[in-house]
């Protein structure tokens, strides 16, 4: 089932959680809503679910307006960060809940319920826990049960609110691979909320970056990482260094070096900020006019790369650079040494430009 979010706004008192948000989700897609806490991503998910009523705008399921429908009637599976399992019911009864509360005419027989629950418990590989109570399960197991419970009502959409947020790193990794596999088997339209970019990149078909109640960018994981639409997306997805520079007719001048900036063809002598990833910085021991001097504060070896923390001499800013282990060994860099930095690749955002938040 496709989901359309059309011009949705939502306020909580004076706090604007969503500001005219529009979003299309294709049938069978697995979409991640990615953003920092308080960005409105959970509110967006809850509006889609019907747990929050938007102040304006509408939600369409399969091109049908469902904005006024109650959550009970939307047929969505919702998975909560803290599982929200019913602790006075056994695992079996938890999964069966959605079937047992159906109106008498639509309620399956006890036998059919039993069959279905067992099938779902097998799907999440926990059928041996049917008679336990939620508190006897680990976090990862509880979340799998929560997923089975949501699936029991055969939802047309699966919505997950930070589903792995309360789990430890190892279980989280296992579970998100498992979720991805499950999605590849069944292709149920799914939306999940996360603040963890790694999680979003690993699991989702498409990523929606949300910030301050607005959608910053929508795109495939690689696309979002390689071509961030806004400074926010650039900074949110990984570490970044900022260099001041000027742009004139598609050529940027950054700390004495000329870099191509074709996206800013029209700008004439405009002030711009260069966003440079740590691995896009050249580190050299030779003094040069086209590089800035910096002192090495720290060097941390991370597997095949070495992360350098440096202080720029001209501005006093801290710069983070990553260079291959071989190059680091070849340069024989020591603590406190002065080296010369130059950005190899950068993405420029003009100082005066308004945030291009609606760009998709």
């Amino acid at each position, binding site marked *: 089932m496709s989901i359309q979010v059309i011009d949705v706004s939502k306020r909580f008192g004076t706090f604007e959680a969503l500001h005219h948000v529009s979003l299309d989700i294709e049938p069978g897609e697995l979409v991640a809503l990615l953003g920092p806490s308080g960005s409105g991503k959970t509110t967006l998910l809850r509006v889609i*679910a*019907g*747990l929050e009523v938007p102040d304006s705008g509408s939600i369409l399921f399969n091109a049908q307006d469902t904005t006024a429908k*109650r*959550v*009970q009637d*939307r*047929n*969505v*599976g*919702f998975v*909560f960060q*803290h599982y*929200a*399992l*019913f*602790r*006075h*019911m056994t695992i079996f009864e938890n999964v069966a*809940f*959605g079937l047992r*509360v*159906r109106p008498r005419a639509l309620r399956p027989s006890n036998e059919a319920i039993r069959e279905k629950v067992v099938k779902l418990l097998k799907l999440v590989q926990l059928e041996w826990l049917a008679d336990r*109570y*939620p*508190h006897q399960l680990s976090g990862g197991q509880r979340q799998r049960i*929560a997923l089975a*419970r*949501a699936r*029991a*009502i055969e939802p047309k959409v699966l919505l997950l609110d930070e589903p792995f947020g309360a789990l430890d790193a190892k279980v989280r990794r296992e579970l998100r691979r498992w979720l991805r596999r499950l999605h590849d088997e069944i292709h149920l339209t799914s939306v999940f909320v996360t603040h963890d970019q790694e999680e979003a990149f690993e699991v989702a078909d498409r990523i929606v970056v949300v910030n301050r109640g607005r959608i910053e960018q929508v795109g495939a994981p690689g696309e979002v990482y390689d071509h961030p639409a806004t400074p926010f997306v650039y900074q949110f997805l990984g570490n970044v260094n900022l260099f001041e520079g000027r742009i004139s007719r598609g050529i940027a001048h950054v700390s004495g070096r000329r870099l191509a900036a074709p996206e800013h063809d029209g700008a004439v002598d405009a002030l711009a900020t260069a966003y440079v990833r740590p691995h896009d910085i050249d580190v050299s021991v030779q003094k040069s006019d086209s590089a800035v001097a910096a002192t090495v504060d720290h060097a941390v070896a991370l597997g095949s790369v070495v992360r350098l923390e440096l202080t720029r001499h001209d501005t006093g800013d801290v710069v983070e650079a990553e260079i291959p282990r071989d190059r680091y060994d070849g340069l024989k860099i020591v603590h406190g040494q002065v080296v010369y930095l130059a950005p190899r690749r950068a993405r420029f955002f003009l100082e005066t430009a308004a945030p291009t938040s609606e760009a998709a």
Partner: protein
Amino acid sequence: MIFARRSHSVLPGFNVALGITLLYLSLIVLIPLSAALFKTFTLTWDAFVAHVTAPRVLASLRLSFGAALIAAAINAVFGLLVAWVLVRYPFPGRRVVDALVDLPFALPTAVAGIALTAIYAPNGWLGKPLLESFDLKVAFTPLGILVALTFIGLPFVVRTVQPVLEDLERELEEAAQSLGASHAQTFARVILPTLAPALLTGFALAFARAVGEYGSVIFIAGNMPMVSEIAPLMIITKLEQYDYAGATSVAVVMLAASFALLLAINLLQWWSRRYAESDA
């Protein structure tokens, strides 16, 4: 003993602490209760039976326990409602209402009794209209006793349910609704079972208080033999007639009945908590 071998406790000297605990409980609880028992034993079995099966005594016991149970049940329902409103809805003056709940608990019982009697008496503010329009007599009838017992029992339910309700995650309700449960189903199948242990505790406390209540009841009860005479008053009456053994035999019956009821409630509570987390 297993407990004695437990590694470093915060409280030093486990044996001493246990000894003091037992001594204290014996002095405060056990000895007075057994004194009542021993006094009763001065009677022969037949005399004891004759005392407690006297129609007037039986009527008073029936009234005391019956009214206490009904009052506790009323409080369980409306106490839950009050707690729900106090926890879930922010409204102006909530703190005042919250403080008001404790009033029946803090008020001297005689004050409550006089106040209730004044209001529900046939010429009182509420008693008069009730009598005139519904022909309903409240003060000086068993109904008046019920009113008084309900009044003093309310805080027990509210104060035991309130903290549990505050901890109740809204996500549980949202989860139930996203699975298609109506509001009524969500309440009956998710909220009520979760609150059941606390509600039972509140019920038990309100009941225990109501059975033993004396001060607020005797004014409004009218104390007519066979009709509106409560068991504690029976005990007083017998004491005033220097019938100590008779008084304690009524006391022993009350003791046994209270104990049996509280035991039953505790068992029910234990059952409703069977899923409780071990670390909670």
